[in-house]
């Protein structure tokens, strides 16, 4: 028992420090956002202010729509690739890994300038283009999450078992592959949502308005209100994360761990 405790002590200390590091700025901002300097008290005035702001719902709607669209785009693009890589296409893993890493390192500013000139006309005049650009930026995170998740599942063995038992490819796809990779895909989608909801660089350089740029504009007129908005957006992402993680159960029974 004593051995176990001393083994867990460094992890506990690390997690406590990490929590302080994450919570201190967020908590301070939350305290700030509740200040009511005119009445010299704390209250929810700043939150009421932005909820009642005329454009609040509009921009929140735009951002959520774009985030959902980019998550869908990534689903269509990445799932076939990652499933195939884990079904015997591992020769190409290096290439795919490299391509999927590039959006993380190539400056977003450079991509934004290029998007202004190189994208097709229909894309220039429709804000749906942002969904595609967010999807590009989310590729490194989503690919990594999906590939790591799928590698821990013996996908090939499961698929061969299903084929051996007489399932056709459609049945394999819908009754075997999709249920098995669901939790992994969900966490990748979540990461895409989080990125899209907070994206600022491409949005502002392409001169579109979303929730993020709206917060930036609002911060010029009402700092406390904008802080309240920032806290609201971060906290709601974390709440969303908690809700989703309740649905994501690790597919434990299917994971043949290396220890066995």
């Amino acid at each position, binding site marked *: 028992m004593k051995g176990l405790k001393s083994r867990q002590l460094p*992890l506990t200390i*690390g997690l406590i420090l990490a929590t302080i590091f*994450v919570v*201190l*700025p967020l*908590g301070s901002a939350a305290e*700030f956002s509740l200040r009511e300097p005119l009445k010299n008290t704390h209250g929810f005035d700043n939150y009421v202010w932005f909820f009642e702001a005329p454009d609040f719902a509009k921009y929140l709607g735009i951002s959520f729509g774009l985030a959902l669209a980019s998550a869908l*785009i990534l689903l269509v693009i*990445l799932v076939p*690739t990652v*499933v*195939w890589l884990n079904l*015997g*296409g*591992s020769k190409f893993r290096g290439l*795919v890994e490299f*391509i999927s*890493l*590039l*959006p*993380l*390192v*190539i*400056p*977003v*500013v*450079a*991509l934004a*300038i*290029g*998007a202004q000139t*190189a*994208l097709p006309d229909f894309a220039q005049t429709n804000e749906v283009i942002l969904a595609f650009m967010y999807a*590009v930026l989310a*590729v490194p*995170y989503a690919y*990594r999450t999906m590939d790591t998740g799928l590698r821990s599942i*013996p996908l090939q*063995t499961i698929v*061969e078992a299903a084929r051996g038992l007489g399932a056709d490819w459609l049945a394999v796809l819908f009754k075997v592959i999709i249920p098995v990779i669901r939790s992994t895909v969900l*966490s990748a989608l*979540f*990461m895409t949502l989080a990125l899209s909801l907070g994206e*600022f*660089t491409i949005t*502002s*350089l392409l001169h579109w308005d979303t929730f993020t740029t709206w917060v*930036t504009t609002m*911060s010029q007129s009402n700092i406390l209100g*904008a*802080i309240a908005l*920032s*806290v609201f*957006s*971060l906290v709601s992402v*974390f709440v969303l*994360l908690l809700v989703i993680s309740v649905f*994501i159960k690790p597919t*434990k029974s299917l994971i043949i761990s*290396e220890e066995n």
Partner: protein
Amino acid sequence: MTTPEVTNLDRKGAPIWGTLIGQLLKALLALAPLLVFMSIFFFAPLTAVVLDSFQGNDGNFTWANYADVFKEPIITAMRTSLALALVSAIVSAIPGAVLAFLIESRGSDRLRQVVASISGVLANTGGVPLAFMFIASLGAEGAATSLLKAIGLDIYSAGFSLFTFGGLVLVYTYFQIPMMVIVFSPAIHGLRKEWNEAARTLGASGRQFWFSVGIPLLFPSFLSALLLLFASAFSAYATARAMTNGTIALVPLMIGNLLDGNVIFDEVNLAKALAVAMIVVTLLAMVPYLIIQRRAQRWQG
């Protein structure tokens, strides 16, 4: 019938999908969505920037757009951007690696999953919300500032300010440390349990295993994660813009300003040349990354 031991790696002798050509076709088909998508929305825009940066207003080839890149004030901004990227990468990589190591080696599956999701969110915080969080905690009126003052540490009279190079580094760690956890964890996960067991069986202590096997094996992955952090900090725009308001000159901000201002053709061209300069820097950082990854793949499954 396959035997239970068959893994992806043992497949060479038994191709399930027929001929080489068939395999290539399958590969193209499976990779097509990603490749087409990336070509349209990523490679085409970047190619356009590179080509346009060599074009004058009349559409002819010219080097002129690059004339200003190596002059003041751009050269100073380039130096500051490089220093900021390097310092913030190093400062974030070390605690990030330690945290990733503790979680991977001692945490439960559930904890690893939770940390991965939270890191994903934190790695993507930035811009005005992140700036506010730090101003609220470590600004002149911030909660942490007054807390430190109460215990006798007046950081502002000691010369601290959020709106300096050091302050910006501190703010960057908020998304860089979680990013380190994301990119470094798979390497620790890939350290095979069998090697630890083998070392233990041969009489090595846990400490001996880490110092003579674990850390030497992980060091290349640490370096490549560091290069990724460098590239991402070098490119960061939203946070830098929200924090500095022009007090610190950085290349991404210069590009943004050139584009935001009233459009003068020369300025757009200069912005494109600057963007190409940034792409070159990040690609240069990727060369050692690729070499290191190739070596690391020898032992990573």
